[in-house]
């Protein structure tokens, strides 16, 4: 029953958020600062995750494909496609569930238990819109940006690891990468990243907004927000794969 209660309240929250979308102007300041916090500040961790994912993928794939019958370019194709379709979006999604999700849940949770949300309401704000809309919108803009960062650095990391370890020459890697490159994959990956952005920000907003019980409540809300975001990212990943592929 708790699940349905939560889901209902979650939907209600989203409804309240879009209910006063006519006041977009007043969210602008928050929108910009959220884009900084969600996007700009997350770039380093996402780039780091991208580079290492690509490098590890490249090394492990070349370790697994030792057959003389399989051309080296296959490694480039596998690494590039995996990153563009799946890993750039999912790995950055999971990293950001921790970084962005936890931050949002803590922020809103603290605002809730220190009555800042009540203060917003008592001033005449639609606190849900004021807090949720800029965060979700910022994620719509910034998650594709982070996806691009993760994808390019991921492919770059894979290429670099192949060259440095001497497993895959650059020319072979690029040949494979380009041969199996489909523009649709980018659209697919980017769609994923936007969906993940929505999942992370909305769930974290929900958990933070309805936090209760002081500092411990905020902690619980943050943990729940991160865990739920990760679970729903993986679920959404599966759903999107079924729907779009």
């Amino acid at each position, binding site marked *: 029953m708790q699940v349905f209660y939560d889901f209902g309240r979650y939907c209600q929250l989203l409804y309240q958020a879009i209910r*006063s979308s006519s006041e977009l102007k007043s969210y602008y300041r928050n929108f910009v600062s959220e884009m900084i916090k969600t996007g700009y500040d997350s770039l380093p961790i996402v780039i780091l995750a991208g580079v290492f994912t690509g490098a590890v993928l490249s090394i492990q794939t070349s370790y697994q494909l030792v057959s003389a019958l399989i051309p080296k370019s296959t490694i480039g194709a596998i690494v590039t496609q995996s990153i563009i379709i799946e890993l750039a979006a999912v790995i950055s999604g999971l990293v950001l569930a921790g970084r962005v999700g936890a931050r949002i849940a803590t922020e809103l949770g603290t605002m809730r238990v220190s*009555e*800042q949300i009540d203060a917003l309401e*008592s001033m*005449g*704000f639609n606190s849900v819109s004021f807090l949720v809309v800029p965060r979700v919108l910022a994620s719509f803009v910034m998650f594709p940006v982070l996806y691009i960062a993760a994808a390019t650095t991921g492919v770059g990391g894979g290429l670099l690891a192949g060259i440095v370890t001497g497993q895959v020459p650059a020319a072979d890697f690029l040949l494979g990468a380009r041969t199996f490159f489909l523009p649709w994959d980018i659209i697919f990956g980017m769609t994923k990243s936007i969906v993940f952005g929505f999942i992370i920000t909305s769930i974290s907003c929900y958990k933070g907004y309805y936090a209760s019980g002081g500092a411990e409540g905020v902690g619980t809300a943050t943990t729940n927000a991160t865990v739920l975001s990760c679970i729903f990212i993986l679920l959404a990943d599966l759903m999107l794969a079924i729907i779009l592929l």
Partner: protein
Amino acid sequence: MIEVKNLSKSFGDNLVWKDVSLSVPNGETLAIIGKSGCGKSVLMKHLNALMKPDEGVVLLDGQNIFELSYVDLRIQRQRFGFLFQGAALFDSISAFENVAFPLRYFTKKKEDEIRKRVLECLEMVNLADIGDKSTAELSGGMRKRVGLARAIVLEPDYLLYDEPTSGLDPETSNEINELIVHFSDNLNITSIVVTHDMHSVLEIADYAAFLDEQKLSWHGTVQEMTKSDHKRLNSFIRASEYQI
């Protein structure tokens, strides 16, 4: 004029209070007193519909605020200033910006007008030199006063104080009390104060309402309160006096 009629509230199976009815004339100050956890703050949060009751109405100039549309309710809410227990300052922005916050979103004032008004309000709460300090750098008393400045910045008709003096030293408490009296007298603001500090009740309030045993146990003027023979009210008042 705020009127509360037959208000009942419970959280799940726990009844907070029921059948509460009282009214506050314009320009007067009402103190809601009672033990910790008796639902004083909850009652106050019903006054500007931050919480919804199970039964009953709150009439603001004769209009039930729970029947207002969300847009109208938010307009009505701007007639209230609310000083929260922990001041509830937005910790992501500076003290100055906290006071300027409502002005930026709800008025079309220009930057210099906003600055002028904010400084005016800060001066009223004796914090003219607060500058661009972040909220984390402020002491408890200063936070309360910044919160107060933020509450009056839109020139409200009603001011709601939730435990304005709790956790403060007696001297700072007195300062806050003086401010409340000052606003009430000079700005003609109707004030409702939630407190369990009888000392400040005697100083600032015209009316008192005593919440006890899950109902509005007693209410009347402060003069009547001191002479009342209500048993539990007397013991509550005396307990406070011992503290002093």
